[in-house]
């Protein structure tokens, strides 16, 4: 019986236009010679080009501002940072701490899911507005279907202190007046006046600013993946430099056991 796998033609055959390194010492990214054409890029410009194919010092600068203002609070209580602090107190390594914190940042109540989700919501809302629906209808439908709107509401506190400094920074470099950021605030205005009382959080602000720069939800997601490391690393370093095991130790009484009290015996 002669049957051929779909995989045969890919054996030792990976074709790509993304880039690579040659044994002769040439490095190419998206058709650009890294040593000759990209060597003066800032790291953020390089990351933007690598992730999205866009060459834009303006977007890179906007993104860099977001990373500084919005994503890297060095507070070890925040859950992704806490992982790095725990790695430090348990005397693990910095790279393992960062890897874990990055992975944990793909969260639902903060981090990457709201970032991607808020961008997606603004694009969908804009499309439906263009089709004739009104904003109230769109937001209500979103709440009805998903019980939340990515980019609005926040755990622990209601207001988001990052919104104003981020908008100030965006305006300082000539951003912040596009239709998507206006839409983001229009949704916030509707929600504030409604019974839901959700306030805009930074995910919607960043999503609006970047949608105005024509970044897709996936573009923003790929770019934001590493954005939180500058908050995690100091938490790791701090815990590494303090007494081992002393980061918020828990005594046994800190376990609130809610299971049955009866002691059972294993049937052998």
């Amino acid at each position, binding site marked *: 019986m002669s049957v051929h796998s779909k995989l045969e033609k890919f054996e030792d055959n*990976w074709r790509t236009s993304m880039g690579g390194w040659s044994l002769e010492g040439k490095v190419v990214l998206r058709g650009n010679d890294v040593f000759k054409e990209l060597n003066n890029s800032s790291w953020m410009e390089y990351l933007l080009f690598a992730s999205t194919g866009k060459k834009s010092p303006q977007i890179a600068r906007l993104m860099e501002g977001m990373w500084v203002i919005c994503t890297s609070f060095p507070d070890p209580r925040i859950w992704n940072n806490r992982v790095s602090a725990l790695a430090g107190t348990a005397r693990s*390594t910095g790279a*393992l701490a960062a890897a*874990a914190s990055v992975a944990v940042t*793909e969260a639902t109540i903060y981090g990457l899911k709201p970032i991607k989700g808020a961008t997606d919501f603004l694009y969908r809302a804009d499309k439906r507005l263009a089709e004739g629906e009104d904003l109230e209808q769109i937001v209500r439908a979103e709440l009805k279907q998903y019980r939340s709107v990515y980019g609005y509401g926040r755990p622990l506190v209601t207001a988001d202190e990052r919104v104003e400094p981020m908008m100030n920074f965006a305006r300082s470099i000539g951003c912040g007046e596009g239709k998507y950021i206006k839409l983001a605030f229009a949704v916030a205005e509707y929600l504030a006046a409604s019974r839901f009382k959700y306030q805009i959080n930074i995910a919607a602000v960043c999503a609006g600013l970047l949608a105005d720069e024509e970044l897709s939800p996936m573009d923003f997601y790929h770019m934001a993946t590493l954005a939180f490391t500058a908050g995690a690393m100091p938490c790791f370093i701090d815990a590494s430099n303090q007494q081992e095991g002393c980061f918020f130790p828990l005594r*046994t009484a800190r376990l609130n056991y809610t299971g049955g009290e009866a002691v059972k015996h294993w049937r052998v």
Partner: protein
Amino acid sequence: MSNNQTEQITTEIWRETPESDNPFAAASCFCGGYDVYGDLLKNASYIDYLYLLFKQQQPTPEQSALLEGLAVALANPGPRDHSVRAAMSAGVGGSTHASALIAALSVGAGNLGGSREVVHTMEYWQQCGTSLEAWQQLIKEPPQLGREDVWLPMEHAPGFDPNGVSCPTPVKQTLAHLIDVGKGSHLQWLNDNRTALEEFAGCPLAFSGVAAAALQDLEFLPEQAEMLFLLLRLPGAAVHSLEQERLGWRKYPFFANGFKLNP
């Protein structure tokens, strides 16, 4: 959240009592009501303890045998598997051993042969049960992602191998063994309807499909199944990574001639 009240971790899985001289050390630990170091350590097998951790109850002999069989079947996907290759890539470069397992988890979490595929397959089970018509319909018209998620949409029917030709012998052997020891109705139904399902899917049953059926028989939730599938596949990643670390990068494929950069 009150500032005046001591914050606690709420758990129905684990209870501890303190040592008399140290409130930060446990003198006894109870899992699902069982004394872990006074009872389970002597009397429970590892697999039974694993079941207890997830379900907070002792498994029946059939459940125990089913989980044991699944654990053996999944323990080493082999060095050609994506997740194991990820771990070996850590090994050959001399990376930390933890990074090898992180690599295996990250790669083995996906929609193709990974734990996310098991989740999707469990969802199919929940939606279709043992109705062949329902499976046919769902495979034909799979659920769409409603809102942007970090996961990519499935590109094939979950539980089946889009790159397969016919159902591989180890998959069939595992399915037969798990039916034999576990007496599970979902596994039996999967076996009885395998060829029809494969026709709907356009490709053969995969390990992820067998694992999902087994975990459905064990009444695991999709998210529990996802975690367990990740855990059970780590031993192979660990040993292959260690082996390649010892052998070094020179003996490991670099695909020097296989990489073609388009002009």
